[in-house]
């Protein structure tokens, strides 16, 4: 009799601890998604500001400047969805950077090397931040999909996080069309 009660209490305790651990995990994953998203937004913002700096630097011809500025402008709350606008900026940067002898044409111009390097670093950080963000989104979505989480609604009212898909490669992929377009 006593042993039965002990077993039941122990089992209830174990289940309670397990369920709350699972709920806590989902909660932590959601918090990580928010952090990763903030980091991704920061890298996107940084990329668009260095792209704008390049556009207005006077290093480039006016057509290229206008093209880049137009793409930056598109990422700043236009009517185009964010992912498409950011992909447009990637493609504009890629079109500029992939001109033959682009670097050579800027050789010896003051500040050119630093600015180009800054754009490349910013673009690479977007690539990294997006990868990390999508990783944690995938883990969160997987955790939410588990039967226990679904039955007990462990994720509460938080909606499932969405992947962020965009073209973020400054280098044209060898398999794709020229410039990936």
């Amino acid at each position, binding site marked *: 009799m006593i042993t039965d009660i002990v077993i039941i209490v122990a089992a209830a305790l174990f289940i309670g601890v397990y369920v709350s651990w699972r709920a806590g995990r989902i909660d932590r994953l959601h918090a990580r998604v928010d952090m990763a998203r903030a980091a991704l937004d920061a890298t996107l913002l940084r990329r668009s500001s260095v792209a704008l700096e390049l556009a207005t630097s006077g290093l480039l*011809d006016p057509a290229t*400047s206008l093209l880049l500025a137009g793409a930056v402008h598109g990422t700043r709350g236009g009517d185009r969805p964010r992912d498409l606008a950011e992909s447009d900026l990637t493609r504009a940067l890629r*079109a500029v950077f992939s001109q033959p002898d682009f670097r050579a044409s800027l050789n010896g111009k003051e500040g050119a090397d630093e600015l180009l390097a800054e754009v490349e670093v910013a673009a690479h950080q977007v690539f990294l931040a997006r990868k990390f963000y999508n990783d944690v989104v995938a883990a969160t979505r997987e955790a939410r999909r588990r039967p226990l989480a679904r039955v007990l609604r462990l994720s509460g009212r938080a909606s499932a996080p969405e992947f962020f898909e965009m073209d973020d490669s400054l280098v044209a992929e060898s398999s794709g069309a020229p410039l990936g377009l």
Partner: protein
Amino acid sequence: MKIGITCPYSWDVPGGVQQHIRDLAEALIDEGHEVSVISPADDDTPLPPYVIGAGRAVPVPYNGSVARLSFGFLSVSRVRRWIKEGGFDVLHVHEPEIPSLSLLACWVASGPIVATFHTAIPRSRVLLVTYPVVRTGLEKINGRIAVSEAARTTLVEHIGGDAVVIPNGVATRRYRKADPLPGWPGPGGAIGFLGRLEEPRKGLPVLLKAFEILGPQRPGLRLLIAGPAADPGEVLHRVPAGLRDRVVLLGQVSEEDKVRVLHSVDVFCSPNTGGESFGIVTAEAFQQVLRGGEAGELFATGDAADLARAAGRLLDDPARRAALSAAALAAVADYDWSVVARAVLSVYETVVLGSTQVAVTASGSEFP
């Protein structure tokens, strides 16, 4: 006059600006002027003798869609060389607010510059952002032309300054002679329509209604309809079943076939219901038919019965049709590219007054 014209868009892609430049250049050459056009173009594109290719245009997102433009230091050096070797009296740039050859030409050139603005300029803030860079180019323009009142308004609002409005011309030469489509117009006569089938302002339903009246009265009469439609079946369904086999839908047709369509019918009908600034279709149809009663028959707007009466009268009277055609040929001359070209020429003549030839400046000279 030696005239240098810049085209911002790829020559091998069909488009309104390219077409405009082609017609303008050919009209100017016909008037005895020396014209050189520089345009982005793929290396293997066959170009008319007056066009210089500026290399392949790069597809790049601009303004929410992908445009094929020429930019970058290589384009700068090509434009510089073209201007240096051209010895132009006047430089005519098209769409200098687009990041392509025209903007570059403004940047590296000095001397008389005329600019034509074709469309609304939606991204005024972009212009502001890069203002110092772009301003240098745009400020050098001595004479500005807008192809429509709408284009002029956006120009005034977003860039400031003013422009003269010189509308597009119609290359009447191209419309004068063509082979009718095989079997057209046929012994029973034919009525033609050109335009987007589902655009209410083009008024196709009025013509279909009129055909319901005319069709049973004239057993051989056919309807030839050319123009794009999302659902051609739906259009055909509006015609009574008994008449359906006498209605031919061609879908979207090429420029050449458009002319052939006009030559394939006895009566061309433009049932436009209004609300359009200047229906280009109507201007083109002048060549075949109309001008306010003296070069074409008019009917009450939207009135199918009146249209049926007017069309019936014309179908029965070949002499009247011939007279109207002749009058239309004279009427359309006012819209011909040669007339438009003369209007553009007088802008050229104004800006070259007291000015030297077009030359290159130091801008962009650091580009090899």
